[in-house]
């Protein structure tokens, strides 16, 4: 790479981000500005901010690499990302979230749940869970970005991680959610441009749409170990019920596809617009954006096998064997492909695309962790609603904590962990928050007690499944081996590859329903919301 051009490009990018962060800082006058952008954000900015926060380096580098392993079956995740993550999220969840959030004056996702059910415990519990577990997801995003910089710029991995995190923490710290949304929108535009060029040039490199047939013909090159696990080639789904099928469908497709609905850093975006009209308008750029992000990353990821085979005589997995562990590191497939296949100028563009993807997601995560600590845990759960003036300073302390935790995790996590860590966090959100969120928006009979029971059940079952059952994590964590002398309590059965979400979400949903029906209905403050609903209906008539 040409160091002079690189320096100019990166400097211009950092200056633009710094300017937008400063703009957010200048326009932030109150805690509401810092937490929910003053509820006056433009729909296009909101859509780009939502999309760029949703799509991170995990989606492009991590899941793009996973597509190189699993093949085009990952397009089911793109379908869910668009249909569930955008259409259902905006049309079904977005409007009531925005309306109830405004009526209850909620500033964070946990606060929406807490105020809806009149419980500081719910707010504190949800805030604590986010503060504790979101750093895992933030670390996955950081690793994805740093791995690319490591390959592309030959920079030390640890330096790359640190610089990334410092830049993002700075503009989130000062600019609050306004700074986050302005920078996200800019970064979203860059990501769109980068992925559009990547799609066209990849198809051009591997022979156009005819490449699908060539990729199908490559099925015999699938390593025997993967064939034994159910792999049938990169243009077909794995054998139904095989270990690979369970991993693809339950962990990657369902975990992320459903988990997106209860993502705290995404749900809070619905509270930043001033009316339901803005959400309808945001659907247009939102749908196209996600198609161009995950759709392109997954198609290109699968096609890298064809490219490497045509040029190097090897499939993608063989190109990225880690020298230390002797295992293939799928997080390096997309960076390797860009380095091999694309002209130098595209390396710069794509580096900015990934920087933008990492920074936009990371900023949303740092903001969500910070507000969970400052607003939900401290100001509401511990200080019992007093010391309103300390919300923002404590949120800033929370952002610093998020920064430190994420960096520590980056150095502790195993290689090739990006897609799995992301899917795990999404699954946890679905298991713990989704039944509570759905109940808060749509089920008047839901009670505080039922929701608390459901949230605790979801988190406990998810945690137990990760620690003791799902072999990929339980083997790495080692607790099960220490207690039971084996890597999973269900070793040797299909249950070892069933993702926690498949078990934890139905259980938490069931507990929420039974717990609500078994307890007396609440009266406050949902009574106020119901009164407001009636008043609105009267006005409409």
């Amino acid at each position: 790479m040409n160091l002079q051009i690189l320096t100019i490009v990166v400097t211009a990018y950092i200056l633009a981000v710094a300017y937008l962060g400063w703009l957010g800082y200048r326009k932030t006058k109150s805690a509401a500005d810092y937490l929910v952008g003053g509820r006056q954000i433009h729909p296009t900015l909101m859509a780009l901010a939502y999309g760029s926060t949703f799509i991170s380096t995990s989606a492009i580098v991590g899941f793009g690499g996973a597509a190189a392993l699993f093949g085009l079956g990952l397009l089911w995740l793109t379908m869910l990302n668009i249909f569930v993550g955008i259409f259902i999220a905006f049309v079904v969840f977005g409007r009531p979230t925005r309306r109830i959030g405004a009526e209850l004056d909620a500033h964070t996702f946990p606060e929406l749940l807490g105020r809806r059910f009149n419980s500081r415990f719910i707010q504190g519990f949800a805030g604590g869970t986010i503060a504790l577990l979101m750093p895992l997801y933030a670390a996955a995003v950081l690793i994805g970005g740093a791995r690319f910089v490591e390959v592309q710029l030959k920079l030390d991995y640890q330096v790359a991680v640190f610089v990334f995190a410092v830049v993002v923490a700075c503009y989130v710290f000062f600019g609050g959610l306004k700074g986050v949304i302005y920078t996200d929108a800019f970064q979203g535009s860059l990501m769109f441009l980068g992925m559009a060029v990547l799609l066209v040039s990849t198809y051009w490199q591997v022979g156009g749409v005819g490449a699908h047939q060539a990729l199908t013909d490559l099925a015999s090159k699938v390593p025997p170990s993967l064939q034994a696990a159910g792999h049938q080639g990169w243009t077909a789904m794995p054998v139904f019920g095989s270990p690979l099928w369970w991993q693809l469908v339950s962990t990657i497709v369902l975990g992320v596809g459903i988990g997106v609905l209860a993502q705290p850093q995404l749900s809070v975006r619905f509270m930043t617009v001033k009316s339901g009209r803005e959400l309808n308008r945001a659907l247009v750029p939102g749908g196209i954006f996600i198609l161009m992000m995950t759709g392109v990353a997954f198609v290109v990821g699968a096609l890298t096998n064809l490219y490497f085979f045509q040029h190097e005589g090897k499939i993608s997995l063989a190109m990225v064997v880690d020298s230390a562990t002797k295992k293939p590191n799928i997080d390096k497939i997309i960076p390797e492909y860009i380095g091999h296949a694309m002209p130098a100028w595209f390396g710069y563009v794509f580096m900015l695309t990934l920087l933008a993807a990492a920074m936009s997601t990371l900023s949303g995560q740092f903001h969500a962790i910070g507000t969970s600590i400052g607003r939900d845990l401290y100001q509401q759960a511990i200080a019992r609603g007093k010391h309103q003036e300390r919300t923002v300073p404590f949120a800033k302390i929370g952002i610093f904590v998020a920064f430190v935790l994420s960096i520590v995790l980056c150095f502790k996590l195993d290689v090739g962990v990006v897609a799995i860590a992301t899917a795990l966090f999404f699954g946890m959100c679905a298991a713990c928050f989704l039944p509570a969120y759905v109940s808060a928006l749509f089920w008047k009979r839901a009670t505080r007690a039922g929701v608390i029971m459901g949230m605790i059940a979801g988190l406990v079952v998810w945690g137990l499944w990760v620690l003791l059952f799902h072999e990929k994590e339980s083997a790495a964590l080692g607790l099960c081996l220490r207690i039971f002398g084996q890597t999973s309590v269900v070793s040797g059965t299909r249950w070892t590859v069933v993702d926690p979400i498949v078990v934890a979400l139905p259980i938490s949903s069931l507990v929420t329903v039974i717990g609500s029906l078994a307890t007396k209905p609440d009266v406050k403050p949902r009574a106020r919301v119901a009164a407001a609903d009636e008043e609105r209906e009267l006005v409409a008539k």
Partner: protein
Amino acid sequence: MFGFGDLWVPIAYILCLGSAALCVIYGWRHWNEGDDMPSPVHPADEDLEFDEEV
């Protein structure tokens, strides 16, 4: 079909494009529809009364 190894992959491919089209068409058709900002019905933080008995 279209050079793919099985039917599930082209179905996913088509559904991806269809979902994006659904977002665009729905957003365009409901461009000017939507409720306005409601005023908060929640009291100020200091006045909140939380009943924590579960």
